[in-house]
């Protein structure tokens, strides 16, 4: 399927490497996931894990930002935003849960593997694992609601972990913190917390550290590839070298990558939705066998809405990625205009995706609701993404703060 023909994005922003990686991943999507899902549905061990292994290790996605001399792909520049948008979109077409895992992993990597914030020592330290033979995924523990009204907060949203200065670093604590993608053997955690003078910081924590424990994976609506479990940290010690970033701008920069890559996951789910509804609309007949489904004006009006949202979701994603990829033109990822645009892109892409999928399910009725037709899994995945990445009202306030210069919220 030539999606560019249907839902174009500005091609001048994509480099050869973006196109060729997206093609490779598109082939992976068809062969490793789509071909097997009628049989295996969302089975983690039978389908998703082997597919992730192929993608991360064999194709080498997980090490693409690492320098070539360390065994990586050497793509650790802001241009990677376009590459990742193109790649994660294709992953999302196959499985939005795997795409979400990648969004988490690369958002964390963006904090230390991308110029101008490359942390050579850390890259070197992690290279043997990341450029090795096992899948390496990362998990983020971001601000969320809390039962404690006095908890330190990032723009009003409480951190889930608290950090206390210790002799040569930090002591981290958290009770039943709700991360993203923590449960399936995440190799590294990015823990957001308040550091010196309440400055936001992101600390890299390995799960084998003393005091770190992972709960039982819990069940959730979708994103089966992203197994998740609550985290408790009882005085986990982190050296200063593990602090990946400090300050609001850097934190917002990491989040801008996260939101953009989550938008790409939604865009991929929409491409899959397109394939499903296209087949249905071409072949279903209604009104006494007299009318090909898509030629019914009421149906067509919804198909129009659906197509429009697909086109917009893609444009938003690639535009947000473009902002990240050209800091010389648009400013750093964490600058208010870029970070806000990334938040807006994610929120609108996710909402648009949800609306398009809701409408698609309406047009497919029972078939849309049945596991067999696959639409419902994307529908569950995107809803999970939309709600768990960033609570709606928090995003709205973030946007208002920038666009309307709020002083108090």
């Amino acid at each position, binding site marked *: 399927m030539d999606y560019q023909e249907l839902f174009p994005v500005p091609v001048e922003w994509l480099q050869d490497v973006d196109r060729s990686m997206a093609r490779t991943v598109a082939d992976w999507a068809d062969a490793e996931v789509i071909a097997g899902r009628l049989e295996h549905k969302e089975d983690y061990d039978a389908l998703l894990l082997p597919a992730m292994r192929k993608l991360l290790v064999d194709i080498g996605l997980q090490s693409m930002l690492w320098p070539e001399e360390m065994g990586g792909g050497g793509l650790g520049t802001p241009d990677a935003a376009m590459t990742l948008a193109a790649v994660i979109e294709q992953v999302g077409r196959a499985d939005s849960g795997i795409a979400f895992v990648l969004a988490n992993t690369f958002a964390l990597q963006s904090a230390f593997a991308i110029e101008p914030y490359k942390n050579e020592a850390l890259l070197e330290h992690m290279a043997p694992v990341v450029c090795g033979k096992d899948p390496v995924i990362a998990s983020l523990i971001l601000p969320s609601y809390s039962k404690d*009204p006095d908890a330190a907060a990032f723009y009003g949203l409480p951190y889930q972990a608290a950090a206390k200065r210790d002799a040569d670093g930090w002591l981290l604590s958290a009770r039943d913190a709700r991360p993203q993608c923590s449960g399936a053997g995440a190799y590294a955690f990015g823990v957001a917390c308040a550091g010196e003078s309440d400055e936001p910081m992101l600390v890299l924590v390995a799960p084998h550290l003393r005091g770190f424990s992972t709960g039982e994976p819990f069940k959730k609506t979708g994103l089966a590839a992203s197994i998740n479990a609550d985290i408790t940290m009882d005085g986990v010690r982190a050296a200063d070298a593990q602090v990946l970033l400090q300050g609001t701008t850097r934190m917002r920069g990491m989040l801008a990558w996260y939101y953009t890559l989550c938008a790409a996951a939604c865009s991929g789910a929409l491409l899959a939705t397109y394939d499903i509804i296209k087949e249905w609309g071409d072949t279903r007949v209604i009104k006494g066998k007299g009318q090909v489904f898509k030629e019914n004006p009421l149906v067509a009006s919804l198909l129009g809405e659906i197509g429009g949202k697909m086109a917009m979701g893609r444009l938003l994603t690639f535009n947000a990625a473009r902002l990240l990829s050209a800091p010389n033109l648009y400013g750093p990822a964490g600058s208010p205009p870029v970070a806000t645009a990334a938040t807006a892109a994610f929120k609108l892409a996710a909402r648009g995706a949800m609306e398009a999928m809701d409408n698609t399910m309406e047009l497919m009725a029972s078939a849309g609701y049945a596991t067999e037709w696959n639409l419902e899994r994307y529908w569950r995945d995107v809803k999970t993404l939309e709600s768990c990445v960033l609570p709606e009202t928090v995003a709205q306030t973030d946007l208002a703060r920038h666009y309307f210069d709020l002083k108090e919220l």
Partner: protein
Amino acid sequence: MRTIDDFTRPLEYLAPVDKHLGDIVRAWAEREVMPYRRQYDEDWEAHRLIEPAFRSLMGELGFQRMLFPEDVGGWGFGHSGYTATIACRAFEEIARADSGMAVAFGVLFWPLVMICNEPHVNRRLCEELAPMFCDTTAPCFAANAMTEPQGGADIENMEIVGGSTIETTAVLDGDEWVINGHKLWPTNSGGVADLFGVVCTTKAGSRDLDDFAFIFVPAKNPGCTQSGPYQKAGMAADKNGDIWFEDCRVPSWYRAHGPGLDAMYFKEVISFGNMGSTAFVVGALMNVYEILKDFCTEQTYRGKPLKENDDIAGVLADFARDIDICRILAYQCARMIDRPDLYGERWSDEIVAKGRGYKYFACDRAVEDLKKAMNIMGAHGSDRLWDVEKHWRDVKIVQLWMGGKQLCQMEVARWFYECETL
């Protein structure tokens, strides 16, 4: 403290048994469903957890007898003048716990509406079928088999399509109907139902509603086979599958009423479906109100409980407003079915169209509101522990079934604007 009972219902419509029955169903739901419902998704095929809860409500408490006349062992609600209003209360109470269960329960009565409701009680069939439901404490299910592989919406679109797409045929052979055809998706299929009400045609391709036939077929009849259940996004307590009829024979009196009348009273079945669907989503929404209230009181943002933040309170207000409105609609819909003396026949185009409107209004609001509820809850919105996501998954299908939303729109437009070709 405010509870779900503070949502409005027109009190003057309620049945004398409303409180008594409502209390029993609520106690049952809180005891036998709510503590286990989180595991229902994994139980979609075996119903190991789900079946005992049905057994207790339908068989042991006896609710499966509700519609049958008293003299055949039933509770006689079919001539109570409150059939729909009582059902509405029961449906919302069950759906508060699990809307899939409410659907399976509701559909047990759906085909029986054809024969147990005044003024068109079919005495002979009632007497013949009542023992299956009334002389047992085991759960006994019925299913309403309309949908076929080529499309369900067209079969319900009787005004325009006139039954001409129905491919399941019924041919009279002596004093037996011989039925051939393939149905899919009926609630309580997938191996559950003991009795099917089957939408057939006596003349394939005919647009004459005299050829529309509604025939009862016991599931164990030779020639009737069922597939196992399909896996789907939600509603695990409702099994759906294929049913095949191959030269399946039933006595000629198993046809509900006869030429013209089957099609006419079948529209009453649709009216009940509209009321039931509205009540199901109201029940689910009321439970989410309870959950949201707890969540938004406990969790803080900007240093105060979520519900004390103006922006979140705005969303919560919309949620409560919609429940209040949809609940009034559900009971209004029920009232219109129960009081043909005031509102006209319940199989009339007017009652069907207005019911379709209520149904799709309530479903649209519910789908939007539940999405927002999940968004408010952030990382917990999609967590099964809170059950909100379950209600979101379940409610979506209520919007899609019975011909889908677009058919509802067309029927409403057709009636209010006197359209002739939609």
